[in-house]
């Protein structure tokens, strides 16, 4: 397992990107050009189970979703910190483990607080 790499190792990613983009764009254009086109006022309205459209679809969402996103960002940062530690786990030994338990303990304390506060309760 060599630790060094070249940026050209990532070149196949670009090939794959190009391949995928080509496939997607071609398909989109083909399907757009060969399908029939029939327009009417009723059909172009948003689907609402057959009844006339009521109000606007851009209603504000519940704050719960926003909170989930905030929590995700915080935990994602924690997880990103865990990867370098896990890779070097054997070299860092007990000291590293204790340090990481301290770090995770801090976040878990916050997690416990969140659960006690009932933030993650959905009704």
């Amino acid at each position, binding site marked *: 397992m060599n*630790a*060094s*790499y*070249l*940026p*050209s190792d*990532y070149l196949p990613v*670009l090939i794959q990107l190009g391949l995928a983009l080509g496939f997607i764009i071609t398909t989109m254009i083909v399907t757009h050009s060969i399908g029939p086109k029939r327009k009417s006022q009723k059909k172009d309205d948003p689907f609402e189970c057959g009844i006339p459209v009521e109000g*606007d*679809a*851009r209603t*504000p*969402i*519940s*704050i*719960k*979703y*926003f*909170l989930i*996103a*905030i*929590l*995700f*960002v*915080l935990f*994602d*940062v*924690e997880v*990103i*910190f865990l*990867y*370098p*530690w*896990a*890779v*070097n786990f054997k*070299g*860092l030994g007990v*000291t*590293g483990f204790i*340090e*990481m338990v*301290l*770090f995770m303990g*801090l*976040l878990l*304390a*916050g*997690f416990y*607080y*969140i659960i006690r*506060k009932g*933030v993650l309760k959905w009704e």
Partner: protein
Amino acid sequence: MLNLIFYAFAALTLGGSLAVLITRNVMYSAFFLLLSLIGVAALFVLASADLLAVAQVMIYVGGVLVLVIFGVMLTHKPKPETTTGPQAARPNYILTQHRAWLWPLLVAAGLFTAFYSLISRIHFSLFEHRAPFQTSVDTIGKQLMTEYIIPFEIAGILLLAALVGATYLSSQGDRTNNQ
């Protein structure tokens, strides 16, 4: 070849950021920000910072930007009569006010000079010789756990504070805006 790729991604980043500034639809600017952030991630790969690139994608693109978009969705759309212009009445437009440009410009210019002077004064010890393309995961892991352990634990405390703050804010919002 490498230079070409670098310029392509730099152009993507800059173009994305410019589009964020120019478009008046908040949702569109959020999606242009996506382009810009991905461009930055690709630049990180070229700068031999692979972990940073992935962290950029996972945290900023996968997390913070989702948060921003949720935030846009959370905001009340102003009534069509309060915003002016023919576009405001159309369904997909959540427009920015875009009037006060002087102060933002001053702030941006100030920040730019500050960062520029900072960066130009830093002496990068690795600047002279070509950077060895090495995976940064091992080094970051070791340094984080030994040399930079205090900042690391402080980051943990900061995250804890952010958690508590988020909880507090949302419980406030729950009481007033019970959706």
